[in-house]
C-alpha cells in the first residue's frame, strides 16, 4: 500500500473513531447539539420581536435569522470538543500508540478533523431539519441547503484545527475546555445572533470584521436574502483564512510536541 493510500485509510479510521467517541460520550454530544438547540429555542421565543426593529433584515420570522447563528455556534463547539478529545488522548497516552505507528503523524490530526467534519455536517443537517419542521423557507432551496452543509462542515474543520493546535500545545483537556467562554464572546461579537449594523460601538465594528460574521452571513443568505457571489467569496475566504492559520498552527504545535516529547 502506498504511503498516501495508507495515510488516507488512517485518516478515515481515526475519523470514524472520533465520531464514535463523540456519540458514545453524551457529554460531548450535548454541547454540540442540545445546548445550541436550547439556546435557539430560548432566543427565538424570547427575542422574536427583534425582527420589528428598524433596519432588521427582511425575514419571515426570527428563526429564519437565528438558524445560521445556531449552526455556527454548534460548529464552534464541535471544533472545541474535537480539541478536548485530542487533549484527552494526549493526557491518557493514546496518542503515543498513534505516534509509534508507521504513519504520517499529521494524519493523526487530520483524522481528528475528519471526525469533526462529519459532526459538523451532522449539526448542519440537524438545524436544517429543525428549520424545516418550524416552517423556515430556504430562499435558495435544496442547493442552498447543500451549500449551508458545505460551509458548516468546512468551518468545523477550520475551528477544529484551531482547537487541535491548542490541545497539542497545552496537552491538557482543561485548557481547551477553558476556551468555552472565549468562544461565546467571539460568537456574540459577530452577527451570529444579532445584525452587526444594529449593535452599539465598538461591538458593531468588531462584529463587522469578525470572520465569523462573514461565515454566518454566507450561511444565512441561503435562507434569507438569497445567493450573492460577493458574500459567497467572503465566506469562502473567511473559512479558508481561519482554516489555513489553524492548520499551520496545528502543524507547528505537533512538531513542537514531538520535539519536546
Amino acid at each position: 500500500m502506498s504511503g498516501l493510500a495508507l495515510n488516507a485509510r488512517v485518516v478515515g479510521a481515526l475519523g470514524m473513531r472520533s465520531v464514535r467517541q463523540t456519540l458514545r460520550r453524551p457529554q460531548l454530544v450535548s454541547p454540540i447539539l442540545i445546548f445550541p438547540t436550547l439556546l435557539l429555542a430560548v432566543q427565538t421565543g424570547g427575542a422574536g420581536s427583534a425582527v420589528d426593529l428598524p433596519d432588521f433584515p427582511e425575514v419571515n420570522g426570527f428563526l429564519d435569522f437565528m438558524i445560521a447563528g445556531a449552526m455556527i455556534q454548534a460548529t464552534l463547539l464541535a471544533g472545541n470538543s474535537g480539541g478536548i478529545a485530542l487533549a484527552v488522548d494526549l493526557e491518557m497516552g493514546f496518542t503515543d500508540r498513534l505516534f509509534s505507528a508507521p504513519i504520517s503523524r499529521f494524519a493523526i490530526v487530520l483524522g481528528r478533523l475528519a471526525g469533526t467534519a462529519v459532526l459538523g455536517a451532522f449539526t448542519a443537517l440537524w438545524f436544517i431539519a429543525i428549520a424545516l419542521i418550524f416552517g423556515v423557507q430556504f430562499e435558495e432551496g435544496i442547493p442552498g441547503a447543500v451549500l449551508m452543509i458545505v460551509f458548516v462542515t468546512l468551518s468545523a474543520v477550520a475551528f477544529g484545527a484551531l482547537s487541535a493546535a491548542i490541545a497539542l500545545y497545552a496537552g491538557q483537556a482543561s485548557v481547551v475546555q477553558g476556551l468555552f467562554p472565549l468562544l461565546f464572546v467571539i460568537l456574540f461579537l459577530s452577527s451570529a445572533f444579532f445584525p452587526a449594523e444594529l449593535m452599539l460601538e465598538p461591538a458593531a465594528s468588531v462584529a463587522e470584521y469578525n470572520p465569523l460574521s462573514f461565515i454566518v452571513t454566507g450561511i444565512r443568505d441561503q435562507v434569507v436574502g438569497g445567493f450573492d457571489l460577493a458574500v459567497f467569496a467572503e465566506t469562502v475566504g473567511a473559512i479558508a483564512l481561519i482554516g489555513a492559520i489553524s492548520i499551520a498552527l496545528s502543524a507547528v504545535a505537533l512538531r513542537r510536541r514531538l520535539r519536546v516529547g
Partner: protein
Amino acid sequence: MGAAVHSRAVAAIEVEGLKREFEGGIRAVDGVFLEVAEGEIYAFLGPNGAGKTTTVRMLTTLLRPTGGSARVAGHDVVADSGAVRRAIGVALQEAALDPLMTGRELIRLQATLHGLAGSEGARRAEALLGRVGLTQAGDRRVGTYSGGMRRRLDLASALVHEPRVLFLDEPTTGLDPVSRKAIWEEVAALNREGTTVFLTTQYLEEADQLADRVGIIATGRIVAEGTPTSLKAEVGKPHLEVGLADGSAEHAEQVCAAFGRRLPAKDGKILVELEHGASEVAKVVRALDEAGIAVESLELVEPTLDDVFVDKTGEHLEGADKQAPPAQAESA
C-alpha cells in the same frame, strides 16, 4: 527465564551513548550503552525516575535523543524512524487504551495503522483476542476491563503486525499476581516464537524470571549488565541460615565453618556463605547431624538483583521487599 538467545551475531537493538536532557538541564538518560541480540529478552531494571521509560521512548521514536545514537532492527531511530516504527511493537506504561473503544475495535485500528487490509485486520484481531483470552470480552468497551485484561489487550494490539522487536514498558506494574503471571507466560511464548523483547520493570522477580539479560539502570546510566545469574554471582555466593534447636551455637559454628566463610549472625541464626553453592546444603545438614546438633530451621538465601543494585548504587530498589500488590479477583 526466557528462551535461549538465538544469535548474538545480529543485534536487534544497539545503543551507544544515548542521552536525553529535558528543559531545565534535567538529564533523564545520561549515556546509555547496550546491545540486545535478536531473539533475546532484555530487562531494564531500575527504580522510578531511573531513566527506563525515557530510554524506551527514544528507542520507539517517541522522543528524540539529545545525544548518542540508537539502532532498532537495524534502523537508526532518528534518521530512519519510519522503518523503526514498522519493525516494532509497543505497549507503553499504564496501557494507554481508549475506554470508549471495544477491544476488537482497538486491535483493528492498530492493524489499520500498520497498513493491514480490513479483512486481514479482522482476522488478526480475532486470533489475537483468542491468544490473550479476550474473545468473550472483545466486543465490550475497554472501560469495563480489569487492569489485567487491559494489559493483555495492549499486548495483543502491539502484536498485530507481527513485530520483530517488542517494547514493553512496565507491563505488569500494578497487576495482581495472577495477571502478572499471564503476561509473563505470554511474553515468554512470544520470545520462543522469535520475537525480541525489551522490557522495563521495577520488579526484581520479573527481571529474574523473564529476562535472558538484565541491565540495571540508576540515574540515567547502566550500572550493571548481565544474565541474572551472573549478576547475582558477582555480588556474592548463596548463604545458609541455620537456626538451632538448642544452645550449641559455638559447636555448630565450628562445623559450618568447614563449608565457607562465616557471616555475622542474624536473629540468633548462624550464617555461612557456601563456597560451592547450593550443592553443599546436604553436606552441611549431614555434618550437623553427625555432630549431634539439633537444627530447627535451615534456609538457603540466594543473592537477589536487589543485592546487585545495592552493591552498585548503595541503595535498595524501591519496593524490592514487596513484589506485587495483594491479589485481586480478575473481573473477566
